[in-house]
Each structure stands twice: as structure tokens, then as C-alpha cells.
């Protein structure tokens, strides 16, 4: 709909004309992000200058065929990888200046990850998996327990807290992963093909949960290769060959 010109210096994006008041609520801002991988002498540029702003409370799908760079973009958004060029502001902070420890902290405190293959730790039970990011952030045992218990209920697994991941179905495991992502109350929840390993029914349940979280004000960015899933969300960014091809909002 509208091409957004972010302003990294202030963290203020150029909002859609009809909603002036969200100016200060840009949570993530990508400015001319380029990413080059070097394989020996061969340099492959995967992202050719991506600029995007994400707003507080948004639910955005990033879609595109495999190889379009959406996973690389996700890794950069998740502070797991650094762009070769360009700047990335997360919550008003310039991540390109950060060292490894600071990036670890910002990942743990500001971001929630949901992966296609759930990525729960097999030796830990449901509750312990949810508590894990909290301990890295220095929460006390009691606080962590309270938060995790609340989230277990929220994803409807309160009768499974002692179960190990392998004792759960895929849908249940993904719900544990969602609870874990919510634990630190992150600025953005990043979901990478969250329904990719699930059957239609479980997938639909996870997507319903996403809608619900979004309605409660959570900011969600979801990567998918499916147009159908993408169009469920109010905004979808379509990528092709390392570039943003389109950035649309649903008007409803």
C-alpha cells in the first residue's frame, strides 16, 4: 500500500498518512539491509537493500519462494546474524553497533522465537522449557515459575507441565514454543514457518492463537512460503530475489 521510509536516526518511521499517532511506535526498522555471503572467492549477495518498518501491534507475514532471502532476513531481524550493510533499529537501539553479548541480551529480552521444528530442549519438561529464557534474563526462580505457569495455561497445556517434548504432539510442542517465546514479554515475536511441520488442524489452531495474541497487542512477524497463510495477516510483505516486491495491508 504505502512504501515506508524509516528514519533510523530517530527511530521514527514514516507512518501511513491516515494514522499519524503511531509515529512513535515503530518497533523495528530495517534500512537498506544488504547481506553478502562469501564462499571462498565467490561473493553471493542474498539481500539487495531491504528497507522495512514494523509497528507496534502489527501482524506481518513475510513470504516468498525458497531462496528469496526471507530466512536471512529473519535471522537479521532476530539478531542472530548481522547485515553486511545497512542498519537495523530494534526498539530504538542500533543493533549494528552491538557486540555478541549485547546481541545475546537483546535476543533474550526483546525477541521471541518460534521455529518450524519447535526447537524445544528435549531434556527439559514443558515448564522448564518455558522458564529457560527467563533464567538467562536473570529472573528469580519464583518469578519464572509464576510467569511460566501463567503462559502454560494461556496455551492450554496446564495438564502437561511435566511432560517432555517427545511426549507431546507437534501442535502441543509448538504451543510450548509459543509460550516460551512469550515468556520474556518480547517486543516482537518472530515465527519462522510455524505451521510447516503441522497438519492442517493443528496449524489452524496455532494460527488462531497468533490472531488472538495479535488482538492482545503482540507484534508478530511470521515467515511463510504460503500465500494463503500470509493473507490471513493484516499486512504481508512479498519478497523475491532478495528484494521487497510488495508490501500490502488489508483494508477491512
Amino acid at each position, binding site marked *: 500500500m504505502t512504501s515506508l521510509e524509516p528514519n533510523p536516526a530517530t527511530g521514527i518511521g514514516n507512518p501511513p498518512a491516515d494514522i499519524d499517532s503511531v509515529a512513535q*511506535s515503530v518497533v523495528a526498522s530495517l534500512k537498506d539491509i544488504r547481506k553478502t555471503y562469501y564462499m571462498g572467492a565467490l561473493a553471493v549477495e542474498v539481500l539487495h537493500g531491504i528497507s522495512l518498518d514494523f509497528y507496534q501491534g502489527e501482524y506481518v507475514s513475510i513470504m516468498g519462494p525458497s531462496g528469496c532471502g526471507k530466512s536471512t532476513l529473519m535471522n537479521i531481524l532476530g539478531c542472530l546474524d548481522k547485515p553486511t550493510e545497512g542498519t537495523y533499529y530494534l526498539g530504538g537501539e542500533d543493533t549494528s553497533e552491538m557486540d555478541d553479548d549485547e546481541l545475546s*541480551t537483546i535476543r533474550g529480552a526483546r525477541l521471541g522465537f518460534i521455529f518450524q521444528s519447535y526447537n524445544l530442549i528435549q531434556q527439559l519438561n514443558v515448564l522448564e522449557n518455558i522458564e529457560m529464557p527467563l533464567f538467562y534474563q536473570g529472573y528469580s526462580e519464583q518469578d519464572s515459575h509464576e510467569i511460566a505457569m501463567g503462559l502454560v495455561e494461556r496455551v492450554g497445556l496446564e495438564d502437561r507441565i511435566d511432560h517432555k517434548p517427545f511426549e507431546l504432539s507437534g501442535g502441543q510442542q509448538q504451543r510450548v514454543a509459543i509460550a516460551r517465546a512469550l515468556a520474556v514479554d518480547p517486543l516482537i515475536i518472530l515465527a519462522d514457518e510455524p505451521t510447516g511441520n503441522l497438519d492442517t488442524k493443528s496449524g489452524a489452531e496455532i494460527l488462531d492463537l497468533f490472531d488472538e495474541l495479535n488482538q492482545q497487542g503482540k507484534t508478530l512477524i511470521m515467515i511463510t512460503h504460503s500465500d494463503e497463510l500470509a493473507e490471513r495477516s493484516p499486512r504481508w510483505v512479498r519478497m523475491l530475489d532478495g528484494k521487497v516486491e510488495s508490501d500490502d*495491508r488489508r483494508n477491512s
Partner: protein
Amino acid sequence: MTDAILEPTVQPRRRPDRPKLRAGNRLVRFKKITQVGIKSIYSHGLRSLLTVLGIVIGVAAVIAMLAVSEGASFEAQQQFRDLGANNILLKSVKPAEVEASSNRGFGPPQAIIYGLTLADVETIRSTIPGISNVIASRIVKKNVWHLGRSMNTDVVGTAVDYPTSRNYNLRSGRFFSETEMRDHANVVVLSDEVANVLFPIDNPLGLSIKIDSDYYNVIGIMESEGFSNLGQNQAGSSNAAPSRIYIPFTASKSRFGETTTRQTAGGMERETVELHEAIIQVDNQESVIEVGEIIEQILARRHKDIDYAIEIPLALLRQAEESALRDQIVAGAIAGISLLVGGIGIMNIMLASVTERTREIGIRRALGAKKRDIITQFLIEAVILSGVGGVIGVVLGIAIPFIISAVWGMTTIVTPVAPLLAFSISALIGVVFGIYPSMRAADMDPVEALRHE
């Protein structure tokens, strides 16, 4: 819907404060990491057990070997101490040439004359200053009787100071007195063992035993303990020292004469030995070795053949101490090598564990774990592994010496330092050999790690 989301009334989300790690919560994290470590070790039970085997053997070896060498050196030192650190022992030894010549020729064999004489002892006593006492003994092998029971034993004719000079204790009764010595009295002190054989039920004190055709009153019982194989009488028998009985020197001389007859394989053998043994007590412990050298020179001048032996317990004690130290160094080196091998085993398995858990590392990194957290996690795991090995090793290392003592009767001493030292070393090995795998884990690229299958 878009309006609902972006509506201004939706409060701009609070900026979460950068969380601060409080000391107590750092402990929580530590505890959680430790729990994960234990779970991971436990989930690979057999593998973990095999891994720590090297450490177990190393630690057990350190403790057991130290216990055995400590026990052996204690035993040796005890023996020499029993002989008296201030003493020099002289013994008569049958020289080899005499033995050969006595078997030649016809007719009844001549009595072989060899060994120390009273004159030797007198010369030593009078020429060397600093000698406080000389206790000369004659040792004759005899059958001793009480009623129907008999026993072949060494009859030691000795001086009244004999027990004190060799740190022997009387269990009951008394040793003979100067008066009895002067009177050539027929009194006897039995060793425990002889008393038990001849008097299985009665208290021997006040009763008498028969040697040859004479009766001797039992006046005391000597403890067998404190005898050593060095106390063996080389002149007569190779019997274990404890089966000895003691009579006054004067009585031995007048009852048995100077020439004794021995049954040998080739017939009868007669030998004349004036003194079988002499204990020379030196005033000052520092001059013992020096006095020993002078005695050696005196005896060498007075004797044509080497028909005597000199033992200086202090010198032997020094030797024993040196060899104990050498033993400990060897034990330490062997143990060190097995601990090193154990450490390499731990490093190996930690590297495997890091590779296997690449994905877990990726997940943890994505969820906010710093490199330092990953290092701590794997380091703790390595230390738990080597610590568990250390504990098993300590238990085994304390048990093995007990078994050795029980089965072979060796003295073993487990000093508290040994298990403590061995355990600390094993924990240290966990740290040292855990560092490299932990660093490898921490240095993984989170993106790569998450992609790892």
C-alpha cells in the same frame, strides 16, 4: 481491524528495562545449568560411566598406591625404630670359606670357630667414646619342654638391658635381674608365642620349663610385637624371631658351653661361637653412623674372615625413607598419567556432546544465552563428569587398601590428604579438559547451530 491494532489508544508498549542480573539470580541460573548437566550425563548413562572410568582408575590408583607405599614405609620405619635408632647391631655370620673347609677331611668334624668375641665387644666399648651400653647375646637353638609339650626355639642368653635396648615390652612378669645374672640363675622369659605353645591353659608365671636336663623358672612373658626379621639370628636359625626365650647370659654360657652341636643334612655340625649378637647403644643419635664406621674398622682389623655383620638401623631407616619417597614419586607419576588419560577421555566425550547438542546450543543462544553461559554450561558438565569419577575413584581408592590389608596382610595407610588431593585434581582435570570443548560450543554461529540436524 487495522484501526484496532494501530489505534492511538493502544498504549505504546513499555520499553522493557534491560534486565539486571542479581547475584541471587545468577545462582539460579547456575543451578539450572547444573541440573541440565546432570540430566544430560544421566541420559547417556553408560557412555558417561565409560568416560569417567579413566578418572576413576586414576584417582583410585593415586589413593591406593599412596596408601600402600605409606603403609610399607611406615612398616619399614617401624621395624627400624624397633631396632632402636641409637643402636648398632653386630651379628656373627658363618663365613663361606669356613663352611667349605669344615666339610673336607676325615674323622669327626672339627668345631668351626667363628664370630664375635667378648674381646671384640670389650675393645669396642673401651676405644670408642659415646657408647653407653653394649648388650651381648648368645643364641642357641634348643628344644624346650613343659610336661608333654615341646618346642624348638632360640634360647637367647642376654643381658638385663636387652628389652629396653630393643624397645620390647613385657606383657607380664619381669625380665631377669643383675643378681640372677651374677648367680647364673635358671630363670627364663618366654615370648608370647612360646608361652602359648607350652602353656595353652595355665599362666606360665611361676611354673618351669625344661631345656636339656635343667629346669628354668618362668619369670616373665615378652610381647611378640616389635620383633622384626632384622632381629633374626643369622648364626643359628632362620626361624622367625618371635619364638625366642631369654635366659641370663651367664646361665647360657655355663649350661650350654661354648660349642654347640647342630643337626644338618650331612650329619652333625659343631660350631663354637662366643657371641651371636651384640647391641651397641650410642649416646647421641647423630654419631651413630660414624660410630658404626669405626666399629667396622676395628672388627676388620681383628677378624681374618668376615664372620660378622653390622646393621645400623638408623642408616636403614634413612634408606627406607628415601625409597619410600621414590615409591611415592613413581606412584604419583603413574597416577598422573592415568589422570591425564582420563582427562583426555573427558575432553573427547565433551567434544562429542558439544557436536550432538549443537542444536541445543543454537536454541539457547537464540533465547538469550551469552557465550559465557554456554561455556559455563559445558564446563559444569565436564566438572560434574570428572567430579563423579573422582568420587567413585575416592571410594574405590579407600576400599582397595582395606582389601589389600585384609588379603595380603600388608599395612596400608590412607592419609586424609590423598583422597582430598586426588579429588581436587580430578575436578581440576574437568576444568582443564572441559575448556576447549566449551569454547568450541560457545563459538558456534547461532544460525548454523540452529540449522544443524
